[in-house]
């Protein structure tokens, strides 16, 4: 459980990709409306850094994105989710998923 997007750091986002996510959507409160003052602003910067990291390796930057909305905007949430889902569907499975499907993992277990 994360009480706030401000708790999300870069490693958590990268871990999601390691765990097989094809895309990661970060949904935070509206900017200027954070219960913890600036948690969502920090999250935005971290998402941006992960975006840049993914751009430097074969995963590609578009697989991570941050959205902001309020808790009362259910319809908007659904629309954002659909939009992001469509985007990831277009991109297809992440190179990690593809690599894992094509051959068994080689990493020795320590």
């Amino acid at each position, binding site marked *: 459980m994360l009480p706030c997007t401000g708790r999300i750091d870069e*490693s958590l986002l*990268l*871990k999601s*990709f390691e765990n097989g996510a094809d895309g990661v959507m970060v949904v935070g409160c509206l900017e200027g409306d954070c219960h913890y003052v600036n948690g969502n602003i920090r999250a935005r910067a971290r998402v941006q850094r992960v975006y840049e990291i993914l751009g*430097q*390796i074969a995963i590609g930057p578009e697989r991570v994105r941050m959205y902001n909305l309020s808790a009362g905007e259910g319809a908007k949430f659904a629309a954002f989710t659909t939009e992001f889902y469509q985007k990831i569907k277009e991109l297809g499975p992440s190179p990690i998923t593809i690599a894992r499907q094509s051959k068994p993992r080689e*990493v020795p277990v320590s």
Partner: protein
Amino acid sequence: MITGTPKPIDEVLSMIEAYNKIIVAGCYGCVTVCRVGGDKEVQVLSSTLRLAREAAGRPVEIKEVCLERQCDPEYLEPMRPYIEDYQAVVSIACGAGIQFMAEKFAKTPLLPGINTGFLGVTERQGEWAERCQGCGDCVLHLTGGICPVTRCAKSIFHGPCGGSVGGICEVDKEIKCGWQMIIDRLKSLDQMDNYGKLKPYKGWDASRDGGPRRIIREDMK
């Protein structure tokens, strides 16, 4: 603190090209404070390397560690039992830490994950600036607490040179003229007498020019 910047991922990937089982080692000292080599950066770098390698079909196993300090022997020792189970260590400590680890573990290649920068300060979040070159012969008491060796692009002892315009160094508009700062500060301290004196040639032998330096303090042994 000692500052640094991350090496480009491609460079680190090419360093670990030959290995499939490595350690990524951080340090809780200076590099944690300047956000380039602490445990968070260990996690991020490790994930990044794993993702890149797995996407390329050549997964790499990474042990993530962060030592209290890589520049003190007692914190390196705990690695001894397992270090030889790994083919290499990517260290994101400063150059001193990386070398010290290399020295302690003769059979393990040490790979630098950061470029070590300078002795500096955090001017503001995300901005670090050089303040000291460790020249071994401090003159800050004569120069209003501002170092001519570090803050002047030419390290001159009787500045400012002709390249100082409006308090800015000719080398870069982002660099303040060290000597303008010295003069402003001497004036505010009412110590301008210090300016008018000829200073002896600097003994650079106390600096790195004298060869690798060593401090021996019998009282501390």
